[in-house]
């Protein structure tokens, strides 16, 4: 992808993010933060590239360390979001 296509994706995604986030109900703002945390760990993609690449030992270990950190976030973030969302219940019908 050239720079302009990447930039287009980025700008469009900012707009999508703007509208999607405004539609999130305030009651779910904490789960929103937890799940955005989990998905921003998509940075793991970069960590995996570095961890899998040859050519620099230092780079590889930095990558692996980043994989560990990002994995804490991915598993922790999704799990804690799941746990929170499971608690939101409607009034039981009598």
């Amino acid at each position: 992808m050239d720079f302009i296509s990447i930039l287009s994706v980025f700008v469009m995604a900012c707009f999508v993010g703007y509208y999607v986030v405004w539609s999130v109900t305030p009651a779910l703002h904490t789960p929103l933060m937890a799940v955005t945390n989990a998905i921003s760990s998509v940075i793991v993609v970069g960590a995996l590239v570095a961890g899998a690449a040859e050519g620099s030992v230092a780079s590889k270990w930095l990558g692996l360390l980043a994989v560990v950190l990002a994995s804490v976030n991915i598993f922790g973030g999704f799990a804690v979001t799941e746990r929170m969302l499971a608690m939101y219940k409607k009034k039981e019908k009598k």
Partner: protein
Amino acid sequence: MEHVAPPSWVGLAYLAAGVLFIMALRGLSSPATSRAGNRYGMIGMTIAMVTTLATHGTASLLEIAGAIAIGGGLGFVTARKIKMTDMPQLVAAFHSLVGMAAVLVGLAAYLNPIAFGIAGPDGVIEVQSRIEMGLGIAIGAITFSGSVIAFLKLNGNMSGSPIMLPGRHVINLGTLIGIIGLVGYFTVDQSPWVIAVITALSFLIGFLLIIPIGGADMPVVVSMLNSYSGWAAAAMGFTLHNAAMIITGALVGSSGAILSYIMCKAMNRSFISVIAGGFGAAPEASSGGAAKVQRPWKRGAAEDAAYLMKEAETVIIIPGYGMAVAQAQHVLREMGDLLKKAGVNVKYAIHPVAGRMPGHMNVLLAEANVPYDEVFELEDINGEFAQADVAFIIGANDVVNPSAKTDKSSPIYGMPVFDVDRAKTVMFIKRSMGGVGYAGVDNDVFYMDQTMMLLADAKKMVEDINKALAH
């Protein structure tokens, strides 16, 4: 190692991951669809990770699997064990990890640019990639050190009161200009010292930016760091030309920015004034000093409160951070149940900045099994206080302070507050009459004719009320 263009399915897979992340956030528009949304997020992440592994050689698959297992295990166990009241700290800690991961990825890309496809065979990194990399590392480092400070403050390892360094605005501005200048210089000189100094200065400024910000402003800080972690991921996405990372970064970046905006608006403060810090620094120096005239107030007992609420038609409960500290959400729900059994209409009212992060109170009430359709936002319920028999305030203070409406000199002037003064009876649970809210201002609600002060630990008091109600 030459760089081959990846097959087109790879781009599509990353795009699919990005779309699934959008759907994950979209699901949060209602509690009913939220869990499906979370699953989309998990699928998206799996697609992104598998795609990367499938296209980048599997020579060190064992090490990578080990790294995922260690990190994943740690994260999973933490997520299971963490108390819901500690959620703000956990989120801050998670932000710091994203920040650090961004720094590490940036440094790894710097050390091995050919593997990332951003340098020619001679190892000279493309100019555009240098800017992206420099910015990614800088934002990541700020996110990391800022989140660590936010974590320490939220977790109580560090005083929640603002720490003011002399000349901090000059220091901060200088550091920031230094970072930007060095990122610029990095485009002409890719020596290791440049990237090292950028990293070090960014760690420093993240630290400096957050220490002057007080506990009450933490909802804004946590949201802001959420936003930064997104921009860091986006910057790395530019470096890697990866659609999934760019889409996610933009989503998270906007999400955090919107949450910061909502929080600032709910406190009637500008983002700049929050960032400048120092709010609630010296409680005794503000209006409290002069206004320390003894004013009459009424103390109530648990039995009186129970009697009045049982006779009431409508009770509106306003929880605040104090409820979280006292872990009183479960006994509070029991109280609500007992009242409902007695035929009372019970509602919960939540201020956008109640607690230490956006939506903090909602999660705690949900944890205590309060149905979410009994929980209302400020603007939806504020008109109902005039008809309410009892406004029951537990652990909140500034969000019910009428001086926000009337006293122009008050530090919280203009902040939207609950009109509890319109309720027939106000019950205010508070530890003692001594303390004031985080803003450090006295609260006229304490001294109103219809106010009953219930002085005790929040949990203890509600337990006593429950005992009296059960009779």
